[in-house]
């Protein structure tokens, strides 16, 4: 470390937290987190999704009042949950999702959101431009001030967020996953900018997912897991990447913890029509050949992904969220076009085939967000349950349907899957999370299923419901279906998958066969080098 280290304003650490706790119901977002972050350095905070990183950022920025504990900035105790106080203390935040108004010009947006006082309510455009030209040049930005925010590339928008944050003369800059949307080159540029800020004495706290990036930028690193600080803050030079990766993933033996839960209940997927004996014919049900797709606002696109799923197999997809899993599932579903490569479903090229046709060919989906993608909350249960039946037989039969028949079929399927409900006419949002998932399974795991793509099928479910879903997936494999399981729960992936791929930056970073080595998988997820 050759960078000059000016002492903190009060001689102590720039940020000091004492036993912070934040709880949402039974969920521990943060629990007993105490840490000191020295002034004038770059501190990385790492951890899995839901480990509490964003919550910590919110507490520091005053957006979230902690239930227990306190935060001191530059030696002064902050009143809990007061954004203004945090800002006045010199704390500025760059959010995960950009907050500048898209229809404003650069100068207008900066003026609007600048945290400093003295903004006049009437201004002249030339004054405005002169003022911000200066600030922009200061951080090495080269953006025309009259450009509209929405016309700017992602990395420029982000550097404007930083300009905005620093315009308030922040001494502490917090960045929540700033690299999630950046290309490697833009990431390097961002890091260069952060280093220069540090050299000017600014304290930088940065939430990161990839150890390669931590290695590139951080002076110290802290690891959160399940809301607790499990490692650090520790000097980056004094710790191995392997140790960090183990701290992130946790090394508890996984499989034993789940086995045998809720054994009284057996799932009975209705696949009785012509079940394939297990493992007799290794048909390939899904094949992705060098598939690439365009990036979205929240995620990288796919980068030359090769993947296949055979009959009677569960293939797991691991990865830190936001590494292309969504793109993968929507590409297979036919909801997002590919730019290159081909998608082969059931042996036939399905690259240009519509989502509806893919469904007819036996593709079934458990989407990521069951409440917005999996069901219609306000529609009655029977209509939710019948959705696939509405398209599945569009061509063969008359356009008329018997509502009574649909309701009866829906009731039968839901009883079969033990959905707890009073009436088929009640709206779907009256069901609990576990019951909603059962409803979705009762619809998707119906006769005709060849291939199931299950995205986060157990997220947010309680123990019993989780066990039920996992047994259903195993049963499917037993019956000769193919399953692609996308999950951020490594225990689940290790327990269920015959094979495992790790997604990283939109591509497949590594492939594993059982038995799995958790630290090797963790390294692939975070990009760690041992």
């Amino acid at each position: 470390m050759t960078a000059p280290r000016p002492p903190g304003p009060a001689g102590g650490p720039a940020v000091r937290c004492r036993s912070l706790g934040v709880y949402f119901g039974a969920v521990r977002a943060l629990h007993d987190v105490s840490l000191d972050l020295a002034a004038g350095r770059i501190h990385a905070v790492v951890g899995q999704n839901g480990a509490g990183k964003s919550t910590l950022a919110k507490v520091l920025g005053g957006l979230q009042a902690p239930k227990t504990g306190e935060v001191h900035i530059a030696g002064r105790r902050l009143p809990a949950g007061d954004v203004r106080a945090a800002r006045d203390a010199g704390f500025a935040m760059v959010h995960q999702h950009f907050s500048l108004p898209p229809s404003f010009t650069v100068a207008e947006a900066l003026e609007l959101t600048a945290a400093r006082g003295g903004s006049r309510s009437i201004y002249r455009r030339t004054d405005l431009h002169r003022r911000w030209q200066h600030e922009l040049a200061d951080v090495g930005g080269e953006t025309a001030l009259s450009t509209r925010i929405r016309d700017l590339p992602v990395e420029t928008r982000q550097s404007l967020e930083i300009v905005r944050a620093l315009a308030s003369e922040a001494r502490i800059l917090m960045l929540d996953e700033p690299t999630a949307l950046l290309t490697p080159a833009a990431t390097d540029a961002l890091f260069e900018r952060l280093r220069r800020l540090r050299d000017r004495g600014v304290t930088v706290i940065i939430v990161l997912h990839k150890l390669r990036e931590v290695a590139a930028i951080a002076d110290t690193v802290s690891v959160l897991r399940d809301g607790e600080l499990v490692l650090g803050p520790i000097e980056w030079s004094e710790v191995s990447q392997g140790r960090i990766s183990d701290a992130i993933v946790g090394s508890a033996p996984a499989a034993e913890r789940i086995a045998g839960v809720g054994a009284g209940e057996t799932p009975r997927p209705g696949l009785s029509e012509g079940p394939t004996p297990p493992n007799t014919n290794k048909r390939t049900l899904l094949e992705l050949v060098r598939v690439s797709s365009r990036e979205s606002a929240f995620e990288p696109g796919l980068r030359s992904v090769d993947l296949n799923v055979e009959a009677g197999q569960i293939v797991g997809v691991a990865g830190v969220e936001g590494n292309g899993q969504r793109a993968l599932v929507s590409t297979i579903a036919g909801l997002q076009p590919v730019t290159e490569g081909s998608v082969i479903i059931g042996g036939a090229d399905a690259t240009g085939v519509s989502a509806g046709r893919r469904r007819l060919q036996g593709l079934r989906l458990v989407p990521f967000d069951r409440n917005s993608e999996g069901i219609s909350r306000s529609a009655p249960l029977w209509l939710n349950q019948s959705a696939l039946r509405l398209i599945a037989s569009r061509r063969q039969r008359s356009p008329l349907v018997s509502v009574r028949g649909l309701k009866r079929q829906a009731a039968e399927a839901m009883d079969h899957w033990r959905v707890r409900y009073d009436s088929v006419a009640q709206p779907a949002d009256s069901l609990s999370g576990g019951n909603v998932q059962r409803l979705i399974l009762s619809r998707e795991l119906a006769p005709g299923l060849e291939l199931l793509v299950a995205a986060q099928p157990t997220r947010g479910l309680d123990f019993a419901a989780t066990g039920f879903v996992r047994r259903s997936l195993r049963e499917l494999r037993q019956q000769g279906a193919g399953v692609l399981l996308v999950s951020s729960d490594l225990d689940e992936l290790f327990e269920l998958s015959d094979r495992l791929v790790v997604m990283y930056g939109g591509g497949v970073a590594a492939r594993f066969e059982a038995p799995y080595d958790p630290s090797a998988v963790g390294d692939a997820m975070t990009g760690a080098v041992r």
Partner: protein
Amino acid sequence: MTDGLQRWASTAAMVGLSFLLTAAILQVSGYGVGDVFSGVIEGSITAPGAASSSIRWAIPLLLIGLGVAVGFRAGFFNVGGQGQFYVGACAALAVTLGWSDGPAPLVIPCGMLAAVVTGMAWSLLPGYLRVRFGTDEVLTTLMMSFIGALVLQYLTAGPMRNPSGTGQTAASERIPEAFRITDGSGVSTTVVVLVGGVAALVWLLLERTRFGMTMTLVGRNPTMARWQGIDVRRVGLINFALSGALAGLAGAVELYGPAGRLVTGFSPEVGFTAVVVALVGLLSVGGTIVAAVFFGGLQSAILFLPIVTDLPSPALVLLHGMVAFLVTVRFRAARRQRAASGAEARAS
């Protein structure tokens, strides 16, 4: 079920509240409230010809209102009924005048078909913009309505103008009597059977077909519909076409029925009132029929009232506007509530 009852009750309460507010305003302005409301009853039901006049006005409201209800089913707020109604009427008129020596049983269906197709086209343009670019259909359908009114104005003042007409407002030639399906009263068995049949078909479509249910899913949650493999854009386009078809048909019925010719700016509010009709009818077919008859009666009373009292007809337009306002407020409030509870559940 109780939820449905509650919605009907709150809608009825809004209509009742409108009556109260209007009565209060009239009282303050020095009119006898009793006279006004007895005038309404007379003008819509008891006076000679009043009941049939109510039905006459209910018919276009019902047809266009059904189109609005169909649009809402798939989540679209198609408020362009007025323009679709006008261009439909113009198309029917063009067919009829161009083939005035043809046999009525052929010309009338052809005219109606032309009206349906033209109404569809008028609605499909905003529909395409909506599904392709996400353009707000409230704005585009509304603007298309103004264009439709100008098309009518142009045709009746220009190419289709009756050269021997003496009136101040531009109007087309009358279509031959043989092509009329009602007399001047606007009510006949043919028309009632036709409109009833259309309403029955719309009910069948919405409540008993795969496509109707698919539309419901799209309207409730297009994201979920997409994940289910439903082609949301295609559903949207067909939906806009159906709304436009119904409003276009209303234009043809108007021409072959009570109007017999087209006058610049005829029935200037029917397309907008139809939106309120559909909302008051809670977007169901049965409810829309009831609401159409109610507003048809009101329209009839508006025309009748100046004859029997010294009350200006705007007094009833006030009532009409009050109902529209309060019912829309109720509708938006219910929507917002639903959206809010949805967001809450997603956050948890």
